[in-house]
């Protein structure tokens, strides 16, 4: 059980700056994120896209913004729990007991939800019966490629993940690559390689096809794929891989007794506290009259929520507002010399 003054859910820009604010005022915090990297939407959805409305930063990409925020946290020791999703938040005396899907648990008076539009999950195949084989013979990521050796693997998708795995697995298995159109998006070198392998009959390429259904009783036996002209083709296959990118899902947050409307959480504008004492929501996921889904708004919300955390984490102390330009205590925390 990890004890901390505040737990932040979400390592996007808002979560990162909120961590900065907590540490600046002398509180401890830890951060949980479902992605395997820091940065949230900035890193997952638009790492290369320029952003023009960060105050005092005329232009930066999602990746640059993330790196700058990480640099800003350098003076502090903050533990990040990546590839973990918070499943449960329960009241335990005066604290919140928080559990992740990896079994990590936290006890904290303050939980700050900086979850954007929810956690990133793989996009799945549309036919319902695909669920039956999920994580048995149908996967949305590859954990151990050895299980595919000598087998037939049908890969769906047109981006780098689908192409890279098609190339890689074609060395040891029989590969079908299925995509909804003729053009692939991905590194040109990989696309060329796939076309070469298709020519050499190392990869069976099916374009303008999509998944129609999966067949098999206990084990997956074959799949039906449907052409744009509605013709169905049946492919014998042992495994299916789908690479359609990630989607944001609100997920377990919906079960924590919070006021949720249209995937956002209602908060006040003084502490950014939800209807549950000690649970705050900041950034894109919070909602209040006049809310703007801007990164700069998330920074403001995080700064105020951090001050509210102080009250619950240090009930016997009085919070004193200080500037980073003049406070000796803050300079010590930042590890910079005072003057």
């Amino acid at each position, binding site marked *: 059980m990890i004890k901390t003054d505040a737990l932040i859910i979400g390592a996007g820009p808002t979560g990162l700056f909120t961590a900065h604010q907590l540490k600046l005022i002398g509180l401890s915090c830890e951060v949980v994120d479902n992605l395997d990297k820091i940065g949230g*939407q900035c890193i997952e*959805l638009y790492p290369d896209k320029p952003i023009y409305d960060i105050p005092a930063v005329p232009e930066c990409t999602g990746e640059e913004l993330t790196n700058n925020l990480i640099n800003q946290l350098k003076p502090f020791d903050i533990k990040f729990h990546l590839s973990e999703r918070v499943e449960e938040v329960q009241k335990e005396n005066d604290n919140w007991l928080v559990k992740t899907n990896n079994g990590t648990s936290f006890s904290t008076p303050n939980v700050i939800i900086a979850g954007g539009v929810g956690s990133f999950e793989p996009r799945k195949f549309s036919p319902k019966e695909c669920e039956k084989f999920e994580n048995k013979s149908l996967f949305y990521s590859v954990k151990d490629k050895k299980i595919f050796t000598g087998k037939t693997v049908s890969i769906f998708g*047109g*981006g780098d993940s689908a192409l890279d795995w098609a190339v890689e697995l074609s060395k040891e298995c029989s590969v079908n690559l299925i*995509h909804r159109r003729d053009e692939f998006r991905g590194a040109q070198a990989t696309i060329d390689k796939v076309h070469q392998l298709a020519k050499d009959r190392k990869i069976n390429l099916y374009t303008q096809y*999509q998944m129609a259904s999966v067949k098999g009783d206990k084990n997956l036996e074959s799949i039906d794929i449907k052409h744009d002209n509605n013709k169905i083709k049946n492919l014998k296959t042992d495994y299916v891989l789908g690479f*359609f990118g990630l989607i944001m899902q609100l997920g377990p947050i919906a079960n924590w007794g919070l006021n949720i409307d249209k995937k956002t959480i209602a908060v006040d504008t003084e502490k950014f506290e939800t209807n549950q004492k000690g649970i705050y929501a900041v950034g894109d996921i919070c909602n209040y009259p006049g809310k703007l889904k801007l990164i700069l708004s998330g920074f403001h919300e995080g700064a105020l929520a951090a001050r509210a955390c102080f009250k619950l984490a240090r009930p016997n102390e009085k919070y004193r507002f200080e500037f980073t330009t003049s406070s000796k205590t803050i300079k010590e925390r930042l590890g910079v010399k005072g003057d």
Partner: protein
Amino acid sequence: MAKITYITHDNQKHEVEVQNGLTVMEGAVQNDIPGIDADCGGGMACATCHVYVKEDWFNKIPKKEDGEEDMLDMAFEPKTNSRLSCQIVVSDEIDGLEVNIPSKQA
């Protein structure tokens, strides 16, 4: 202003007037039309405002720009007449547009 008809998966027709300059996605969100999630808020980064555009309209409205087709690869059950509604800008020319909303966005 343009009249836009959104047809949800259960065949409910929602007819709304949308201001020129807004996108078809914004027209749906502002009028509480169900089935358009628009998670990324119009950045062409999520494919959750996916719609099907009736054939005759599909060829009339401005064509897809770079990147939209890539995002449609990730949409739920894309078809040849799929579009991202955040990329269709409303103008007098599209008055009367009809779009079908898929059963879900992901």
